[in-house]
């Protein structure tokens, strides 16, 4: 089965350090989402891209977070500087055109568990 690959799976870092999370969407999928999951807030949309262009990043703290798609096979989410409140699981999800993903759903990666100490 095709998979969305996220790296790293776990990351522990000190406050103030830069963190970069990577996502390889499924080949041919043109839509990529970044979600953050915490116990308190649940799943929150941070940003998403279609055909590599950012469509919405209103859920993302602009001062420290940035999301990019340098090419169709890589999406990145960067936090600089990181803070303890950023500790969460970060998911990437990808989907094909509307017809495909309504049928099959967006495919989620396994997430990156980030701990900022």
């Amino acid at each position, binding site marked *: 089965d095709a998979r969305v690959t996220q790296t790293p799976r776990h990351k522990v870092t000190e406050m103030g350090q830069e963190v970069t999370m990577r996502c390889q969407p499924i080949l041919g999928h043109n839509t990529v989402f970044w979600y953050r999951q915490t116990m308190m807030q649940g799943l929150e949309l941070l940003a*998403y891209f279609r055909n590599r262009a950012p469509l919405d990043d209103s859920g993302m703290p602009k001062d420290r977070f940035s999301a990019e798609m340098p090419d169709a096979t890589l999406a990145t989410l960067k936090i600089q500087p990181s803070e303890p409140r950023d500790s969460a699981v970060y998911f990437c999800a990808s989907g094909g055109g509307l017809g495909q*993903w*309504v049928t099959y759903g967006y495919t989620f990666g396994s997430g990156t568990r980030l701990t900022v100490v």
Partner: protein
Amino acid sequence: AQTVTQSQPEMSVQEAETVTLSCTYDTSENNYYLFWYKQPPSRQMILVIRQEAYKQQNATENRFSVNFQKAAKSFSLKISDSQLGDTAMYFCAFMHQGGSEKLVFGKGTKLTVNP
């Protein structure tokens, strides 16, 4: 803005029995999609079932079925013949058709299937 509410933070059921998870949503839109996702301890988010709002017939996938009440804005998930592997977090999600294609999730229900 759309909101999704799952009023049951935790539920448990005995193996082989049936359980229903509740979900309500709030929207002013008429065309949308609803989903149930499963998240087992592995963290993987897995699509369980989907429903198009324009379809009156309730969706069914093997042991999983939904009760979609559009007027009441209710979308419950019924799991029949519960299995130990059904133990997971279950998330209800909404997406506006023709909009931004963003999924809005509820806070989830933790389901435990007991042997």
